[in-house]
């Protein structure tokens, strides 16, 4: 197979179209996040630039592009400026194989899940470099946190992806979606969906896993020294990744562009897929508006002690179920049972003792009884200082 000029032109057109589309999606998320968080908190959110503040991200972008691009004196300049690209490029390359509907993908690989896994790990290098090259202690701390966090949470993410591959019997997103035509996989393996969502939150550094960005601890972590356009690139990559997690969850668990009532025409299918993806991203923002942030060691133990074992358990149950050909409701049952067990254990070990303690404090407070008040009509004779 030889590469013709036309192929190159098409590749360039496709790349431009992809970057544009993903950027627009990312920018739309900036608005959505700010608006939704605002409403969660009883604020109107952005409402100045354009109708409903829709042009706010554009104004932000213009502002960022006009800002001076500062780099710290002792920073490793080349790495400092290459790092944003190392984060940006993989997060966009992953989109190459994400199908928006059956026929709408830039490259419809048979191994698209594998492609996604391979490229999503790359951005760790960029974050680590960004943290290290800025020659700031905060960004170094943030960079190391990021490396530890992203590497650990790759594992459950990938294992769950493999589980879905095993369930569908194909490494292609298209086939995985087609396999969910009647029943989306979230109904089959809710536990896997929850694990994937949690691991995805950690992968993109969203609350409660925004540990390497933590603005109240390491003040933005690896990004602390970036400004202007370079910071904007990180920002765009972050929102691209956020939407990626939404899209992947929609593809793997919510049935992508398919619904149980027959085949949709292509535009409606794309719209359905985008709706599902946006729904998951709104869920991500909702978590951000509700949860505090974990500590690095707690996050690591959550990852290694809970998420990874549970994801392997899911993989094994799915493989066993497929191998012996058990009915699929057994899978749902096992999954739900595990989820319920986890919830029960959490309540038993953590929530209930805290509530008991709170009740105890409420009950055992020292009561100070009021003295009866004499001389009600004679305010002057009330009292001087009772203390000595």
């Amino acid at each position, binding site marked *: 197979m030889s590469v013709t000029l036309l192929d190159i032109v098409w590749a360039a057109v496709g790349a431009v179209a992809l970057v544009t589309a993903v950027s627009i999606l990312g920018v739309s998320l900036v608005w959505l996040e700010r608006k939704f*968080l605002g409403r*969660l*908190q*009883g*604020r109107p959110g952005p409402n100045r630039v354009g109708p409903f503040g829709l042009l706010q991200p554009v104004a932000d972008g213009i502002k960022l592009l006009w800002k001076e691009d500062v780099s710290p004196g002792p920073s490793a300049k080349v790495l400092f400026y290459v790092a944003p690209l190392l984060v940006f490029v993989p997060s966009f390359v992953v989109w190459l194989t994400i199908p928006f509907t059956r026929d709408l993908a830039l490259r419809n690989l048979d191994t698209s899940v594998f492609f996604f896994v391979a490229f999503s790990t790359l951005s760790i290098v960029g974050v680590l470099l960004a943290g290290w090259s800025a020659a700031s*202690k*905060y960004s170094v*701390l943030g960079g190391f*946190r990021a490396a530890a966090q992203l590497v650990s949470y790759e594992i459950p993410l990938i294992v769950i992806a493999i589980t879905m591959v095993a369930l569908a019997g194909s490494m292609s997103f298209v086939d995985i979606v087609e396999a969910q035509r009647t029943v989306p996989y979230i109904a089959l393996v809710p536990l896997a969906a929850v694990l994937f969502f949690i691991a995805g939150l950690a992968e993109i550094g969203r*609350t*409660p896993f*925004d*540990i390497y960005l*933590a*603005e*109240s*601890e*390491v*003040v933005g972590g690896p990004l602390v020294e970036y400004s202007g356009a370079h910071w904007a690139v990180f920002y765009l990559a972050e929102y691209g990744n956020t939407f990626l997690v939404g899209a992947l969850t929609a593809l793997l668990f919510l049935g992508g562009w398919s619904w149980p009532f027959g085949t949709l025409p292509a535009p409606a299918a794309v719209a359905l897929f985008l709706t599902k993806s946006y729904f998951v991203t709104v869920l991500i923002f909702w978590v*951000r*508006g*509700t*949860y*505090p*942030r*974990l*500590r*690095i*060691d*707690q996050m690591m133990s959550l990852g290694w002690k809970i998420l990874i074992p549970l994801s392997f358990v899911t993989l094994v149950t799915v493989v066993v179920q497929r191998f012996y050909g058990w009915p699929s409701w057994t899978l749902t049952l096992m999954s739900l049972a595990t989820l319920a067990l986890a919830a029960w254990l*959490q309540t038993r070990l*953590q*929530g209930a003792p*805290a*509530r008991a*303690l*709170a009740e105890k*404090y*409420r009950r*055992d*407070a*020292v*009561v*100070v*009884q*009021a*003295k009866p*008040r004499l001389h*009600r009509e004679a*305010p*002057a004779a*009330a*009292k*001087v*200082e*009772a*203390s000595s």
Partner: protein
Amino acid sequence: MTTTDQRQVDMMLNLGPQHPATHGVFRMLLTLDGERIVDMEPHIGYLHRGSEKLCENESYGQIVTLFDRMDYIANLNNELVFVRAVERLMGLEVPERAQFIRVLLCELNRVASHLLFLGTYGLDVGAMTPVMYTFRERERIQNIFESVTGARLMHNYIRIGGIKEDVPSDFTARVRAALEFVKRGVDETDRLLSFNEVFLLRTKGVGVIDAKTAVSCGLTGPNLRASGVPYDVRKDNPYEVYPYLTFKVPVGERGDCWDRYYMRVLECHESISMIEQCLDLLPDGPTMTQTRRIARPPKGEVYVHAENPRGDIGVFLVSDGSDKPYRLKVRPPSFCNLVALRPMLLNSYVADSIAILGSIDIVLGEVDR
């Protein structure tokens, strides 16, 4: 080839004074082994305004405005303790209505201060929503302050011998209406944050200080009570009209961040009940003692203390008989509570340093004065 140098070097991390989570301009010099804190050195004084020295050059009436600006979250409580010191020295008897209004407003201010703490503490541990909810309810209290004192923060309302002017006619109704919202806001924050899994993980067993260390560090207020010492100036050395109120002093037992946090949630409820009692008991009468316009306390010295939202605030006042104090020393609760930061902080993580500092609830205006 030479062998690599295997020496371990601890990293010094300068947290503050421009760090977003140090509640002002506090600076901690952390020595880190990885993420673990092996040593901590606090640096204060970035907000030093020389308030105590300034007081020697201001007349007694003017000093009230300086006390407003020490603990700028609990202004009325601060005004009250200074004014009580002067009144004690002068032997003034304050009309009972004025005392009730003072206590009522101080308790309102305590709720406002604790609401601010609940919100910002959520922010410290990474939850961004509680702060919006608590500020919304705090706003209602500020509105009441504005309608009573004319200012939202720097009131200059509690004067030597009474209060500036009587409360407006719709005061009782407004306070009762606002309290309903405030109760709802406290409950909402309680529901959102107190038992959240991640919040429990971040605060349970973090920054533990036992009762003995707490007392020897001079910890007061909710921080001390969280360690299990039932010390409250309102209970142990009652002032103003506190003897006429029934209230509970919540006491913790673990002395960790969560206990310190939860003490404040409970105190909000107690303060609200005290405000309601004050409203019920509020007598009629004058609100100001007839005194000379310029206060000239007799020669002497006096120490007065009171329960602020942050702890036991004390004012030591030496008068030489003129219209300005000879010397004025404040025992600021935030500053004394900060002493306990180091024992709480050692061997915890960087992220904990913020959670622990937040749980002490310092106001830098009072630490540095």
